[in-house]
């Protein structure tokens, strides 16, 4: 849209206001009239679902902060007091905790949707890279938040993850001491984690704004993967996608509510209901399910520093995706070979998740190493090669050609 374009509002107050701060025009252009490909499937609704989840986490989080005490002696009991004595606290606390799981569940679907339909390809590289940044900040936020209840797994997760930085040559130990604010995971650690856990969600909100901005410049990708042509390829965002997204959000909330109300402890570890005890190490220190694949990568490499590099590399590699994929065709629907490898990657990630939940010994270690190797192989070798070697199926010239039956009434009417 042109910078100076103004919507001609009939209402004089609206016109007066909009000419001074064009927020109404912005809303009209970017939320209501925004031309959206008409063929987006339900995988595209996860953007809206994620936006809702971010709001849920921030709102429940702000309420929790009103009752939480960030001190090693009181943090655990204050969470319990929320569950016991705060009005509806049991529900709000679970909404936040289970919400984190649902947030990741949605973000993983969102990411794999982008992988399948080639949403990272030109001209959406920056959109994609902001997305990877959002994932990183989300992971940091989730980890910091997991430490706050100061349960056994909270404490030992903090210990294990911060200790990863000791693998850095020369400065490792100094950095860990700096992160802890002392010589062990203790009150200063809890306090700074609390501070950062409150800060990062707002950073996330800012990144989400940039993400949407970067989306609205080239417009949405779509399941066919060809650029939209003005006119019959698009529909206005409102009411078509506001309604479709809203419906999907509510269906997602049903799943969320099912876990939250009827299996609130299912996605967590029972041992985190035990207060942190620096003197007793749990038999198995395992992260929440959404970190398991990365944990598996970390532990499948015998060298600590290389393991840490591989773990972070497994996410950072996504930044390079737009240039690792050499195929000009976006949608995997028209890429018969890549599509197979896409599903293999999905399966590989699930295997890594299962491996991550098991001790790194025996056959688990071997499976973990193969799966880790395959993960990197997929991005570094398979993706570039398949792009060169594969013969894609013919791509339709336009969305309308792909989605509308030939000679349909709609087409005739245009």
């Amino acid at each position, binding site marked *: 849209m042109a910078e100076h374009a103004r919507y001609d509002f009939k209402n004089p107050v609206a016109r007066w206001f909009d000419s001074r701060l064009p927020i109404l025009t912005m809303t009209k252009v970017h939320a209501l009239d925004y031309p959206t490909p*008409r063929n987006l499937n339900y995988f595209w609704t996860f953007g809206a679902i994620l936006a809702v989840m971010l709001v849920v986490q921030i709102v429940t989080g702000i309420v929790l902060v009103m009752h939480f005490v960030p001190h090693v002696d009181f943090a655990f*009991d204050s969470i*319990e007091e929320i*569950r*016991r004595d705060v009005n*509806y*606290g*049991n*529900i709000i606390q*679970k909404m936040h905790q289970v919400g984190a799981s649902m947030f990741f569940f949605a973000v993983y679907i969102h990411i794999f949707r982008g992988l399948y339909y080639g949403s990272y390809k030109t001209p959406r590289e920056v959109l994609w890279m902001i997305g990877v940044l959002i994932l990183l900040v989300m992971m940091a936020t989730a980890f910091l938040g997991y430490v706050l209840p100061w349960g056994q797994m909270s404490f030992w997760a903090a210990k294990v993850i911060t200790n990863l930085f000791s693998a850095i040559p020369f400065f490792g130990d100094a950095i860990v001491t700096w992160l802890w604010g002392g010589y062990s995971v203790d009150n200063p650690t809890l306090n700074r984690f609390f501070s950062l856990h409150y800060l990062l969600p707002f950073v996330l909100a800012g990144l989400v704004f940039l993400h949407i901005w970067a989306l609205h410049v080239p417009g949405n990708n779509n399941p066919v993967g060809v650029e939209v042509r003005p006119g019959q390829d698009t*529909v206005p965002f409102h*009411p*078509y996608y506001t*309604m*479709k997204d*809203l*419906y999907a959000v*509510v*269906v997602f*909330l*049903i799943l969320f*509510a*099912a876990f*939250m*109300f*009827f*299996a*609130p*402890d*299912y996605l967590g570890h*029972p*041992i*985190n*209901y*035990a207060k942190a005890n620096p003197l007793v190490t749990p*038999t*198995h220190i*395992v992260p929440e399910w959404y970190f398991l694949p990365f944990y598996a990568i970390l532990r499948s490499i015998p060298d600590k520093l290389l393991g840490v590099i591989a773990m972070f590399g497994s996410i950072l590699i996504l930044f390079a995706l737009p240039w690792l994929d050499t195929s000009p065709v976006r949608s995997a629907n028209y890429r*018969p*070979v890549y599509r*197979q490898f896409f*599903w*293999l990657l999905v*399966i*590989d990630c*699930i*295997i890594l998740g*299962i491996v991550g*939940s*098991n*001790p790194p010994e025996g056959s688990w270690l071997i*499976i973990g190493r193969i799966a880790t190797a395959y993960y990197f192989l997929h991005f570094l070798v398979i993706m570039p090669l398949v792009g060169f070697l594969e013969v894609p199926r013919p791509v339709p010239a336009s969305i309308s050609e792909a989605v*509308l*039956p030939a000679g*349909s*009434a*709609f*087409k005739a009417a245009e």
Partner: protein
Amino acid sequence: MSRTLPLIALALIGLSAAFAPALGLEEKHPAKDVGFSFEGPFGTFDRAQVQRGYQVYKEVCSACHSMTLMRFRNLGEPGGPEFPPEQVKAIAAQYKVTDGPDASGNMFERPALPSDPFVKPFPNEAAARAANGGALPPDLSLITKMRAGWSGRLLTLYTTQLIKGMGGPEYVYSVLTGYEEPPKDLAAEAPEGKFYNPYFENGHWIGMPPPLSDGAVTYADGTKATVDQMARDVAAFLAWAGEPKMEERKRIGFQVMVYLVVFAALLYLVKRRIWGRHEP
């Protein structure tokens, strides 16, 4: 290339998930699967059972185990044993707590009030250990939440946990009723003052002597106080103590689910009508 490759890989996942032993639970006996009234999406606590369970805790367990998160008033709140207010006051008044300082700066003893926390059996951890042969009797406020009852193959385990919950109350029941003679090969290595209990979380040897015996308490409602009955009752009481707002959670959960399902159905119809304008 066909779809077979991903399918084979998927089958491998299925197999590994079905046969893989779950994390670290290989040696422990899975808990005995006893039925409780509070299981399932509509399950509620059996008031009489939770009241009996409190009696078992008070007369047996509380000699060694604290429950620091509980207050006497909880015993009268909705969703739990729901003792009448006078009875809650009377229960609290049986305990003495230290309060103060008074106007002249002295601490004094007074009968406990409903707002006071459950009185701890030992003043501190060292005293608790000293009185229990070095072992620390854990606080029981969250015991049914912090212990997982089930074990087994991953896929079965995850299904069981989804359907039956994490198995904490069943764990408590199983430990209380799980004392047995150690197997021949283990009997020789029995540690001093420990008892064999294959259901115990941290190895087979538990520091707690079998706490229950038939008739250990006398139930006011005439229920026969067998070991099995008392173990069930106290497990139910501890399950309530672990989440006193469970009934509220399920009740609101049901209302939310009904609301969301109806709302989703309506949204779907609206969405279909709107998109109908543009479908050929």
